[in-house]
């Protein structure tokens, strides 16, 4: 699961605000936060720019560190 919701709440913005900033629907933001949709790389980068963080922080899963 990604940390989009966590960092979005830290930034103090709503799903609708994030959706409008990135240029997607609020429903899509909800699907991304719940792990029901895998966004494209460009969309991930757009979300990272909006939340002021990087790809690893938002989307890297901790379980993968153990496997490596």
């Amino acid at each position, binding site marked *: 699961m990604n940390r989009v919701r966590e960092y979005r*709440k830290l930034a103090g913005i*709503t*799903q*609708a605000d994030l*959706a409008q900033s990135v*240029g*997607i*629907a*609020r*429903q*899509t933001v*909800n*699907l991304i936060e*719940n792990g029901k*949709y895998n*966004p*494209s790389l460009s*969309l991930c980068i757009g979300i990272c720019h909006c939340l002021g963080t990087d790809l690893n922080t938002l989307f890297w899963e901790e379980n993968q560190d153990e496997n490596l």
Partner: protein
Amino acid sequence: MKIYNWLVSHFYGVDGVLDEYKEQGLGRIGNVAFIFLSVYSFLSSLIGMILALNFGTGVLLWLIWLDLLVLSVALIVVLRVVMNRNLDQAYVSDKIASKKVAFNRALRGGMIGSFAFLLVVPITTSWGDIASLRFGQIFSWRALLTWLVISLLLTGLMYGVFRYPVPGQTPGYPKEDDQQD
């Protein structure tokens, strides 16, 4: 790109932004519909030619009716799948505005459906004699008014009711797992 987005949004009845998630979903639905209609089109043309050679060209009118029926059913199925997958809704929190949008969409769909019905039915049939088309009767004001009333009442209303959200699919009412914040 703007024309493409406008075309896709209005064809599928999509509200709000047409983002990559909706595009992928609509693309899958559209691909299946295109494959089905392509195969059907090929088979219907082939069968139509065979029947026309054996039974005369009058059969072709029935073929046109069948083609329109299959196309209508395919469109209804496509729109229904789009609605079931919630690709058409914007999930706005303003319930009043979303109900107004839904009503306008239903009204627009009904008008388009009734207009299409009005154009298609008089062209493919006549008043009691399928073999000969009489333009004077078909395109008279009395005939057009009659078909307009029938199409508005039957086709347009049915299409509008079909497109208006039913309980459980009303826009602006997020599902239980669809958290706002």
